[in-house]
């Protein structure tokens, strides 16, 4: 087995263990990490939506970004860049969130749910893989959001600085924030533990380029299973952890923060998969890239956060009772918007050998 693969499997095992530990320490069930849910909670804490059950300044998010920043600086891979279709990325991030909150989880939480025995996540995984497959068809036809450009390091540091500011707000001025008294937002591990978990996972994900979308995408496109091994390792660690702690519960009904509507679990994650391929990575990967200076990914994260706020303001987000009518319409609109974005960004002639010599001079 190659060194890279061993490294990503080891990282996946640690990430899975951290996720189980955070759940045991107080996070909601099967939600050691969930980029979608946590960005939604942060939007609630800031008052961008007023769904009282999902308001909390999740330290894991800042930890993930800053863990990536620290690792990128330590390994000299911090690189400020941006300018690759930022508004389009905002829109894609927005609809990633619409799909994720239809399913009730990002792809990482989908793996955590699977490891907890939630079979609804298996339906979500099928949709996710289907969406990624559609995304790979777009890539094969030359889909591109065009090149990024090197920017000043201060620009690359801006998003990590915003994350540090959110942490400061939580520590120094919590009275400005909103906190859930009940519901998933009220369930959380201790602040320092959450932050530490985020920092560790952020650093590992930066070092290994772990990406849940990339795993399936690369397997389809390139028969490259390196990233997929990382996702499988997370699943294995979570499964073992839940079995040890007696939290494994196989079935569809009665799962924590989940619903049983198979069609919309499938479609929600299909939207997440497709839009994430066009973004170049899953929600976790967008946070990690933003941490290492990528402004385009920072815009995608801001799009996801705005999407989360609108999902609750417009009643698009599902609950344990199931999806909403508004949410179903929003997911269908999401497919239409992503299709238009895909169609508008196809290269007329995918680059071939030698063709890029001229591009090099642009």
């Amino acid at each position, binding site marked *: 087995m190659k060194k890279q693969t061993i490294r990503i499997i080891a990282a996946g095992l640690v990430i899975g263990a951290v996720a189980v530990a955070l759940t045991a320490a107080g996070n909601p069930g099967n939600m050691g990490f969930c980029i979608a849910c946590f960005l939604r909670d942060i939007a609630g804490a800031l008052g961008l939506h007023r769904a009282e059950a999902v308001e909390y300044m999740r330290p894991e998010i800042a930890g993930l970004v800053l863990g990536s920043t620290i690792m990128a600086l330590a390994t000299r891979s911090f690189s400020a860049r941006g300018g690759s279709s930022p508004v389009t990325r905002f829109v894609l991030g927005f609809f990633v969130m619409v799909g994720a909150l239809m399913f009730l989880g990002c792809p990482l939480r989908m793996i955590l749910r699977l490891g907890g025995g939630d079979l609804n996540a298996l339906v979500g995984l099928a949709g996710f893989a289907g969406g990624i497959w559609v995304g790979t068809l777009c890539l094969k036809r030359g889909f591109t959001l065009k090149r990024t*450009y090197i920017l000043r390091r201060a620009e690359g540091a801006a998003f990590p600085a915003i994350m540090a500011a959110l942490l400061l707000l939580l520590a120094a001025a919590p009275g400005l924030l909103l906190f859930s008294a009940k519901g998933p937002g009220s369930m959380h591990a201790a602040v320092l533990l959450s932050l530490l978990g985020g920092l560790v996972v952020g650093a590992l994900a930066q070092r290994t380029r772990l990406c849940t979308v990339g795993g399936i995408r690369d397997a389809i496109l390139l028969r*490259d299973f390196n990233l997929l091994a990382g996702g499988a390792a997370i699943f294995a660690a979570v499964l073992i952890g839940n079995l040890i702690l007696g939290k494994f519960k196989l079935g569809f009904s009665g799962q924590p923060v989940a619903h049983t509507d198979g069609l919309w679990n499938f479609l929600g994650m299909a939207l997440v998969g497709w839009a994430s391929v066009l973004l170049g990575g899953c929600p976790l990967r967008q946070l990690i890239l933003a941490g290492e200076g990528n402004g385009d990914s920072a815009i995608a994260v801001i799009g996801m956060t705005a999407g989360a706020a609108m999902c609750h303001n417009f009643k698009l987000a599902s609950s344990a009772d199931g999806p909403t009518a508004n949410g179903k319409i929003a997911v269908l609109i999401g497919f239409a918007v992503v299709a238009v974005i895909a169609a508008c960004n196809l290269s007329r002639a995918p680059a071939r050998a030698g063709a890029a010599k001229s591009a090099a001079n642009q």
Partner: protein
Amino acid sequence: MAQTADLDARGLSCPEPVLMVQRAVAAGDPARLTVLVDNICAVENITRFAEHTGRKAAAVQDGDEYTLTLTK
């Protein structure tokens, strides 16, 4: 350096650089292919692709950029 590379994948996000290489290989199966990239993720992806397809890949770093040379 840029003018002498067969492929310029600088600034492109993953997996576009490795897909450019895949297309170039499919189009002409060149004995030698040089690719310009500007992030380590692309270097790793292209190196893995080269190994999977029976090629050798060597990377030379120049500041933020890397020139990868793939040979059969």
